């Protein structure tokens, strides 16, 4: 699989390519932890969701949570990845107070999910494929609280033992835009699958970003640095740009890159060293003797596969095929599960979705999303419901109101609420298609403006003035097509 080319960075001595790989830690959506029955609820009192196993009391043993395994398999299938019917849990040994066992249970040599891929859509309709190296299950750590005591550090073990999926990409990403698109797409897939809520603010999704640079056209990989614990997509982009420039400057000044772990400081817009390769831990991985290898059958995987929801790529293809949406519009709708769900509910409420599906997409994207964006709201807080939007689209589609009137109607529904069909009736917003009524207006205007008639006959493009006048005097309710046809025949143009 070859990576899509990315934006090159201009250095003092030439162009440079950035090579990026990501390790995304996604917290598994499950009621209880990976190896204990304790709750995974976010934000409880410190140490209120801690079992004897989580606190690593003497003699406690881990027991695998089957739901977390299902979620990992589900995710693997969503990433078109190889599912390993046999995988092994290993211990990653290190001392830190957020890790009560003194080791993290993870998967090292035999992960539950192997190679897969994610399709990216980039600006200008370009696409790129990013390879997935592996996905494995592991325990999350607890949290250190430094603000509870002037002299002591406190430990909150609530998060300790919660299941994480570590999703490792291949170094297929070539610039910051692709990296952001990758995380966005991955998060979208996880949300569609319901395997991770993707909430980066709560830390449900975090990424370690590996960055190296090489001269444009080079094939050897440069020495990489790992930027740890990124919890915002825009910071990931910024951090990559800064880190790539830092590395280019060093190399161009005749220096070499030290392989190290770095942290990004969004305030200062720079990365700084956290620990060097020499300081790196020796994790002394070995198979956890408390756990048997994780084994399941083809049938187990098939059962999960049968229950998978439609994923964004499939949904997009269907929207294009069924409703003739542009690839761009389809992408906008499927980017978030909530948006796609909203659009699909609007579709379900339409009288004729084959006829008006595309129109509905325009309304969801341009009017509704446009308005929501402007007011900084998201789809879950929309004042216009899917039923209301379906009704508006129906009214346009069946020719009861014009697109222009529909915008007024949308405004009323947005601010005052109400049933669009009833509003059209009570407020007299119906489009006039009665030929006689429109003809009367046309005749009046032609009679009152003989000079304009002469001008229009000489230069037919000036007929637009008459259209405007007719529409104005009908309060916008005249059917524009009828008006046009009538004017053309009356003016003889």
């Amino acid at each position, binding site marked *: 699989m070859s990576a899509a080319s990315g934006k090159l960075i201009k250095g003092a001595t030439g162009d440079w390519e950035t090579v990026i790989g990501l390790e995304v830690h996604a917290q598994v959506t499950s009621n209880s932890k990976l190896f204990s029955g304790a709750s995974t609820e976010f934000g409880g009192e410190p140490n209120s969701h801690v079992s004897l196993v989580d606190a690593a*009391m003497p003699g406690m043993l881990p*027991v695998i949570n089957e739901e977390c395994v299902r979620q990992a398999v589900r995710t693997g299938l969503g990433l078109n990845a190889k599912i390993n019917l046999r995988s092994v849990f290993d211990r990653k*040994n290190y001392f830190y*107070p957020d890790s*009560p066992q003194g*080791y993290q249970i993870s998967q090292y040599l035999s992960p539950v999910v192997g190679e897969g891929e994610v399709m990216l859509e980039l600006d200008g309709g370009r696409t790129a494929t990013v390879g997935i190296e592996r996905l494995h299950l592991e325990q999350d750590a607890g949290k250190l609280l430094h603000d509870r005591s002037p002299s002591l550090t406190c*430990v909150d073990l609530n998060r300790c033992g919660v299941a994480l999926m570590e999703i490792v990409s291949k170094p297929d990403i070539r610039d910051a835009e692709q990296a952001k698109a990758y995380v966005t797409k991955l998060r979208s897939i996880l949300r569609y699958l319901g395997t991770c809520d993707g909430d980066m603010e709560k830390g449900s999704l975090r990424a370690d970003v590996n960055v190296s640079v090489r001269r444009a056209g080079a094939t050897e990989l440069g020495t990489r640095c790992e930027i740890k614990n990124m919890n915002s997509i825009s910071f990931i982009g910024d951090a990559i740009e800064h880190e790539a420039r830092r590395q280019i400057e060093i190399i161009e000044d005749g220096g070499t890159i030290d392989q190290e772990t770095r942290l990004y400081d969004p305030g200062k817009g720079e990365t700084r060293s956290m620990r060097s390769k020499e300081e790196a831990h020796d994790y002394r991985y*070995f198979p956890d003797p408390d756990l048997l290898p994780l084994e399941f059958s083809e049938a187990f995987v098939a059962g999960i596969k049968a229950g998978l929801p439609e994923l964004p790529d499939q949904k997009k293809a269907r929207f294009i095929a069924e409703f003739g949406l542009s690839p761009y519009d389809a992408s906008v709708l499927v980017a978030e599960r909530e948006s796609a769900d909203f659009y699909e509910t609007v579709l379900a409420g339409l009288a004729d979705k084959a006829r008006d599906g595309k129109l509905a997409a325009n309304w969801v994207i341009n009017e509704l999303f446009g308005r929501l964006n402007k007011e900084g709201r998201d789809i879950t807080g929309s004042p216009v419901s899917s039923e209301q939007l379906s009704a508006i689209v129906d009214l346009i589609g069946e020719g009861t109101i014009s697109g222009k009137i529909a915008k007024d109607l949308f405004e009323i529904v947005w601010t005052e609420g109400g049933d669009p069909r009833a509003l059209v009736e009570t407020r007299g917003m119906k489009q006039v298609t009665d030929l006689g009524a429109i003809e009367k207006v046309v005749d009046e205007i032609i009679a009152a403006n003989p000079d304009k008639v002469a001008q229009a006959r000489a230069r037919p493009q000036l007929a637009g003035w008459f259209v405007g006048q007719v529409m104005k005097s009908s309060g916008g309710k005249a059917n524009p097509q009828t008006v046009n046809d009538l004017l053309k025949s009356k003016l003889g143009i």
Partner: protein
Amino acid sequence: MTRLTSLTLAEARDGLANKSFTSLELTDAHLGAIEAARALNAFVMETPDQARAMARAVDARIAKGEGGPLAGIPLGIKDLFATKDVRTTACSKILGNFVPPYESTITSQLWRDGAVMLGKLNNDEFAMGSSNETSCFGPVVNPWRREGSNTTLVPGGSSGGSASAVAALLCMGATATDTGGSIRQPAAFTGTVGMKPTYGRCSRWGIVAFASSLDQAGPIARTVRDSAILMRSMAGHDPKDTTSVDRVVPDYEAAIGKSVKGMKIGIPNEYRLDGMPQEIEKLWSEGAAWLKAAGAELVDISLPHTKYALPAYYIVAPAEASSNLARYDGVRYGLRVPGRSIGEQYENTRAEGFGPEVRRRVMIGTYVLSAGYYDAYYLRAQKVRTLIKRDFEECFARGVNAILTPATPSAAFGIGEKGADPVEMYLNDIFTVTVNMAGLPGIAVPAGKDTQGLPLGLQLIGRPFDEETLFSLGEVIEQAAGRFTPARWW
């Protein structure tokens, strides 16, 4: 009440059932014996109030005809087993005064079946040792002495407290654990019966872990029958331990007295060590002769990878231990020795909390797992383990029902005699570690005495989950050799 303490568990069970005496009387008799035997240092925690309360409660149950299979039987519990509200230390300073808010699966099964807890028994620190000299509570003394000598001897380890207490008639039976011989070797040193069941037969939940892939709990008892009775209550599947196996627990006692006629007993050539004492050789042939006389057939077998077992064991066990003991960090429970940084707190706590043998094994384990050494040590040791397992499988596939070996290369030695060279101490496990490496059941049964009057044991190794055959064969040896009880000097 001496009479009551000298009963076997089976006899006491029958006496309780036909109301010849009460559990409280039986318990009091043992509590008295414990008090009189403090010189042995077998118990690190006596729980007389709890014992009497449990005995009274079970007496009430017996009166209503509701007693379980162990109703009213007073037992000692190795300090490696977590006992709810009763201090549990694994005999390490690092656990300090740790009182677990939970009960191990095995002990809760014993209490479910009506047993009474007398207290917690001494052991080597974190079960690391073969003489019970590494305990932070000091060494346990073997109730046996060499004829005409006052030298105090070790009871073996790591379940030295269990073995000593059972041999000295302080409890009717005891829980123990075995990672490389910690049930069978002390049983052999004290003239008691020690059963290490198949890996997965008993739950490890609530037992302080030493080496998870090798640790297995089992009983130390006065007779083979007593051992079978205890096994039935200790064994069973536990959803909290995914390495425990979901198989029906048989009535082990029913195996006692079953004919061993036609059974094939393997005699492994590789267990004949250079320089092995004559009396061990003699004991072994005697044992074989008894089994033959009972109708079993003796076959010479080869277990070619035996010689690699001990070195491989001393890689695998410390590797797992180094990781298992990482949780003792002074952060959440047990000893904490503060420092200026978290790193210093770890160092101070662990340096002060762990004794020298534990520190040695943590360091060996850390070393063999570290980058660059993992393949040469840990991975290779695991391969050896597979080969050892295969050796046994091939013998069993050829129809061998059980394998007879000596339990230990010598009788009990003096306290302080083998402290200097750790490898000399490790050699104690030479006949027992293979069984743990292969996950098989093994039983040590007293079979005779050495020239100085100290008990010696034989080991029988069985097929996976065939503890019953070991009980049947063990009882044949017991019948032939008789029981061994030390003369009271304490």
